[in-house]
Each structure stands twice: as C-alpha cells, then as structure tokens.
C-alpha cells in the first residue's frame, strides 16, 4: 500500500508547491491563455454560407421596428439584397468580407452597422463582378437595401477615387446612417488595383430599429 499512498502524497505536496509558487503569475498565464484558447474547437468551415434573408411582406411603411424582430446576422450570412436599378446593380449582401463571401456577393465589413441602426454601413465587392455596376452609379441615384425586417433607401451623394490605404475615405464612428460602398479601381481588366472607388449615400427612408 505504501507504494501507492506515498507517491500520491508526494504528488499532492509537489503539485501544491508548484501551485503556491505559481500563484502570483497564474492570472497573467490565464489572461494570455484566454487570448489564444477559445471555449470551443475552432470552426474552419468558412466556405459554408448561410441565409436569413426573406423578402419583407407589408413592412416597408413602418417607421420603427422593435429590435426583438431583427435577427442579427453572423459572419457568412446572407441578410439583404442591394439594388440600384438605374446603374444595373443587383446583388446579395453578406455579413463579413472574406474571400468566399466576396466570390458570392457583396460583403459587409463586420465593424460597421446593418441598416436601420443609424450608423454607417460599409460594403465591398469585386470591381469585375458584383460591384462592376458601381461605375454607372450617379449622384442622386437611389440605392435600395432590402432586408427581412425592412426596406431601406439611400440617395447617392458623392463618388470618389482614393488610394487603397487611405482610411480617411470612410468614417465609421459618425452617428449617421451613411451607406459607403467601395471596390477596386479601375474597373477595366488588368488594372493596377492601387486605388479604390467609393460611392456614398445618405439614408432617405426605412424603419428605425427601436430598442425600447
């Protein structure tokens, strides 16, 4: 029996000593650990896109919508359709802007808001596919974003060509629902891709999300 309880006793004492010695740095270790360890095994199935988008029925005339009626999209979720009839733009809008999403439609930067929240919306897509019609968009055109909870219209206020690294081209901290769409520039084949084409629009209609 001594061959069992004596090693066990040593083990408990040994681990106890290590625990007491490590006590001052346990919080630091735990903090660093939490940075790289998540609660679940990571899911790499980014290629799977999902959808929560359904065309809204009789919802366009509402001024407000309870927040409880809005399903927040997760990355890779199709949640809206963007159209601009005059420019020939008609594309699905996904939450997130991974390569897979941009191959399948318009991607929304996850650090920006979705329609109805009174905050900026930053959308991107490829210049040779879904955002090719951006070259036809004119100031004054109306862009419509249709979500499951409401229809939102934005009037184009400006277009701009900027360097691809120019972060001053968009302001994501403004308290205004500004639609910002961008794509690579120029639109023609085998361009330098050093620039971005920006299109800005202000919200003119669509229900506001009510948090009360």
């Amino acid at each position, binding site marked *: 029996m001594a061959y069992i309880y*004596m*090693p066990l006793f*040593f083990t408990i004492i040994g*681990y106890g000593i290590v625990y007491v010695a490590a006590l001052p740095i346990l919080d630091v270790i735990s903090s660093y650990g939490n940075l790289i360890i998540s609660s679940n095994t*990571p899911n790499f199935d980014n290629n799977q896109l999902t959808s929560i988008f359904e065309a809204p029925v009789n919802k366009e005339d509402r001024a407000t919508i309870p927040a409880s009626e809005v399903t927040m999209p997760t990355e890779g979720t199709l949640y809206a359709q963007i159209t601009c009839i005059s420019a020939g733009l008609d594309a699905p809008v996904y939450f997130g802007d991974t390569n897979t999403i941009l191959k399948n439609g318009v991607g929304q930067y996850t650090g920006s808001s979705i329609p109805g929240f009174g905050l900026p919306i930053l959308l991107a897509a490829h210049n040779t596919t879904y955002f090719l019609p951006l070259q036809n968009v004119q100031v004054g055109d109306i862009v419509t974003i249709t979500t499951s909870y409401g229809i939102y219209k934005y009037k184009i206020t400006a277009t701009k060509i900027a360097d691809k690294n120019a972060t001053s081209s968009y302001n994501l901290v403004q308290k205004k629902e500004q639609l910002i769409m961008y794509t690579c520039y120029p639109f023609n*084949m085998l361009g330098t891709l050093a620039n971005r084409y920006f299109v800005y629009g202000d919200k003119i209609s669509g229900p506001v999300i009510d948090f009360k």
Partner: protein
Amino acid sequence: MSRQKKGISSFWISTIIALLLSIFLTMASYLGGIYFGVFNNALILDSVNKTSYYNAIMDYTLDKSQSLAIPMGLQPEVFDNVFTLDETYAEGNTLLQANLNGNEYIPDTSKVVDRLVSNINLYLKQNSLTVTNEQQTNITTFANIVANEYFQSLSLPYIKYYTNLRNMVSKLVYVGIPVLLLLSAFAIFLLMKMQRWVHMSLRYIVYSTLAASLMTAILPVYLLITGSYKHLNITPEYFYNFMVHYITESLFTFIYISLLLFVISIMIMTILFFKKRELIKKKAR
C-alpha cells in the same frame, strides 16, 4: 534519544529527502520533455509531413490567389500548374530547415512568377485580348504579389520566436538537467546512508520515482484527455492542424518519460524484492 524516536525522525527525514528527490526528478523530466518534445526539430518536421502541410499550403495559396485575380478580371484557370507540390515541398522544407537552424532562406518563387505570367499571356492570346504596356507591367506586378503570398504561406508562422525561445530554453536544459541529476544523486546518497538496509533505501527511491512518474504524466494526460489545447484560436486551418499535431506529439514525449520513470521504479522494486529476500534468507540461517 530512544530507538523509537530515532526511528520516527529517520522516517520523516527520509520522507522529506524522498519528496525532494521526486521533485528533482520531475523537474528533470519536464526539462527533458521540453528539450526532446516541445523543442525538437524532428517533431516539427514530422508534424509538417503528417498533417499534409504543403498540400494545404498549395490549396490555400491557390484559393487566395484566385481571389486576388478576380479584381484583375482574370479567370481561375490562369493558375493551372502554377503551384506544384514537389516545388512547394522542396522550397517549404528548405525554408523550414533553415529557419530551425537559425538561418535565413528566401524561397525561389521565380518559377511561379514565370508560369503565371506565361499563363496570363496565353489566356489573353486565346481570348484575342491586346494589352497596353501599363497592363503588361500590371501583370508582372500581380504575379509578384501572388509569389509573395506564396512565400508568406510557405513561412511557418512564429518560427523565429520559436527558434529564439528554443535557444534560451536549451541553455536552461543544458545547465538544469545535470544540476538536477546531481542533486538527485546526492539525495539518493543520503537515503542510502540513512538506512541500515539497502532495501529500505530503495523503498524511498521507489516512492520518489513513482511520484515523479505520476507528476510528469498528470498534466499531459489531463490535456490529452480534455483536449483543451485543441481550442487554439489560430488560422489558417493547415497551421492549426500542424500545431495540434505538434502539441499532441510533444505531450506524448512527457508520457514516454513518465513511462520510463515507471519502468525504472519497477526495476528498483524488483531489486528491492530480491535484496529483501536475500536478507530474510540470511537471517533464517
């Protein structure tokens, strides 16, 4: 001091020395595990091979390159045969070996650039498209961007930190293990001197080796069973797979060392058994 009191104090002193011995052996085992497991170049190379690392790099780079080609208006077929497994394996392995040895190596991506430019020109020709000088320059620039992506993918992330850390830990191991083994030898010497009979000394040594075996195994076994290290938040997927395989193999190194200590314990117990029997026989005579 009465004989009984002397016996009790001898027991406690021997127990404390045996406890210290178990701690020395555990520390030596952990240092050994770190040296032969965590910082073992062969284990990294093995993990790279067993997780199809280079196949995954090729797929990942191809997918990323095809995404880069979309804004250029190029079709995915321009990447046909641009990346080859043989080349990826050869360049990747050379880069990895060089990095592990603390050397710099820049993979030769010129063939990738040449093949991609040639494929794009062929594509343009087949579609009767003519390009300006500026566009021709853009093709070369694009091919270089793709080659750079390929180079970035070939480089094992954090390898330089790993090499620096390994060099630091190696110094600790080279000093630590001999010191701990010397301390262990001294503890064994004291245990031998304290007990009248050899088998009694061996008994305390067995307690220590068994405890060291247990202490070495508990943490790795816990991690292997719970799999908490598989919750690592790292991307891309091929790097995650590599890391999980590498950590699993490293944890097994500690288990092997623990098993070695267990086998040593069994061997000492066998010697102890025969020593004790020898003594009983002597007494019976």
